């Protein structure tokens, strides 16, 4: 007990947020073979949209309430999904058939653009996140202590991940997504509208990222316009760890990364914890080049 379980719970909470962001990276990568560098920024926008809603007239006076939080998260998800679809339409679609490095640079440009747009809209300072809407309290489950916040984050993240998993595995649209990920041309021959699928992926990914953004705001109680890059990089690392393009892999990778980071911060050194994450990534890629759950993809020619 003690420090270990505490860091484990902290790690699982953080890891479930990483996993939500990582899903956006991995789905876009699975469909388009593109690292969506703007995804971290979409996550950050989600945090800011949630912030604006919670600070607005709409939320004032309301006490702690899960319904209010659910509405805010949903609104942030919708708003950011719209931005995500726009980014795809403007910055990625015209480059779908050009050299992949041009798409990478375009993605970096979109990331810089969104980050600076957020800076101009919400200011350069850290913003304190309103957390009074979250029920306070601690719980004990099997001798492990949770805060209400951690429980809400874990439950929401788990719900979203399961919903996505069943959507992709059990529905016709999910099957179309999987087919598109395997082969665009064949999928098109089967009557799948590739553009619709890509648009859908740019709705789901950013929406999950936005939910993660609100969670990070509530969990760490402050947000900044540059945070998208730091969390985005971690989440992308998680996606690679799990095997990029693989949806359960992103979930496993996210949780694993969160736990490793928190254990590293607890036992080794918190100043080095970010370096620790990348050292593990490099080690993993040397031993298992396609991630934990990744299929052997890149080496087939």
């Amino acid at each position: 007990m003690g420090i270990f379980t505490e860091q484990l719970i902290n790690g699982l909470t953080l890891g479930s947020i990483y996993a939500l962001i990582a899903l956006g990276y991995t789905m876009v990568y699975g469909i388009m073979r593109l690292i969506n560098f703007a995804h971290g920024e979409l996550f950050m926008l989600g945090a800011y949209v949630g912030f604006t809603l919670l600070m607005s007239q709409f939320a004032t006076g309301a006490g702690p309430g899960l319904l209010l939080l659910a509405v805010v998260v949903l609104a942030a998800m919708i708003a950011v999904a719209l931005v995500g679809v726009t980014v795809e339409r403007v910055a990625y679609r015209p480059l779908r058939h050009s050299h992949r490095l041009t798409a990478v640079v375009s993605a970096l440009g979109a990331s810089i653009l969104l980050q600076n747009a957020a800076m101009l809209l919400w200011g350069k300072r850290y913003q304190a996140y309103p957390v009074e809407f979250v029920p306070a309290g601690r719980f004990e489950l099997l001798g492990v202590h949770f805060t209400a916040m951690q429980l809400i984050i874990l439950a929401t993240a788990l719900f979203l991940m399961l919903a996505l998993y069943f959507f992709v595995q059990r529905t016709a649209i999910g099957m179309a997504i999987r087919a598109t990920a395997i082969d665009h041309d064949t999928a098109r021959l089967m009557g799948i509208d590739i553009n619709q699928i890509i648009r859908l992926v740019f709705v789901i990914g950013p929406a999950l990222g936005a939910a993660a953004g609100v969670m990070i705001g509530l969990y760490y109680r402050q947000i900044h316009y540059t945070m998208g890059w730091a969390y985005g990089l971690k989440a992308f690392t998680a996606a690679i760890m799990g095997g990029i393009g693989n949806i359960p892999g992103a979930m496993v990778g996210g949780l694993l990364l969160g736990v490793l980071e928190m254990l590293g911060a607890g036992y080794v050194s918190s100043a080095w914890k970010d370096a620790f994450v990348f050292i593990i990534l490099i080690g993993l890629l040397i031993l298992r080049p396609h991630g934990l759950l990744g299929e052997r993809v890149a080496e087939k020619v």
Partner: protein
Amino acid sequence: MNKPYLRWIVYAVLLAGLIAFPRVASRYWTDVAVFFGIYVILGLSLNLILGEVGLFNMGHAAFFAIGAYTTAILSTQYGVPLAWLFPLSGIVAGLFAYVVTRPIIHLRGDYLLIVTIGLNEIIRIALINNPWGLTGGPNGLLVLDRFTLFGWSARTPADFYYLTWGFIVLIVIALVRLQNSRIGRAWNYVREDEVAAAAMGIDVRWAKSLAFTLGAGLAGAAGTLYAAKIRIISPDSFTFSESVILFTIVVLGGLGSIPGVIVAAGALMVLPEIFRDFMEYRMLVFGAAMIVMMIFRPQGLWPSRRWVRELETETTPGSAGSPPKPGAAAPAARSDA
């Protein structure tokens, strides 16, 4: 440019303009030209790795940092003259790159990209955490020595200008020679098709390793110039966004194109100086410009001739649904993901 003498006239005019510039321009613009020059060297060094061999290195600032910190540490603590450190930092950065990229050199495309980003972050975090009291932590280090070569020492912006651009002229000549050599052609071959290159007897690992070592070495030497010029170096100068700018310079210029790198570095360094008045919106415009440039000029501002020839043969009908070939790792991943 079919007539060879025309080409030499262009070179002569360019060289004369290069020499005359600090006599005409203000100190401020001479300074801008020095930093522009440092970015040209960095861009050219990354071009060896990313442009010539197609290795996605998005952590190039790490090698630049190794060079700059080697300079600062050896100069302030051991009194090594900066002129010696110029090659020495290059060697240290090159060796560092050789050692750290050995286990990851086989990684393809985006995997290499994320690992190099990670490498950049590890270096930056290490510099901030001040290992063995060497790096001065977040505040960085001061460089007190002056760059002195055969009794001539660099003091004014014009001195640094001649030092930087003199070095650029030398390395451009060397790089053009390298491009047309066996090594340069082997690099391009590896970029286009690793398996075929290996089948033709090219040691792919060696070719990649060499590119990383040379590119990092050149970036390390640029680190000495930077440290000598700016005189205070801190981890903030070697962040991921620095690597992103270098990456953009190479892609925007046109992969494998030396004039392209110079033009793109100019666009990225000098244009923001001109638009200084719009400080707040500068980066917003910068991001938008990156997207627009990639959409309207995907081949780069000044694509290399070899590259153009390849692009022309690429556009065959029937390939509309799948990405074009030069991605190397992309088509392999596409069919059986």
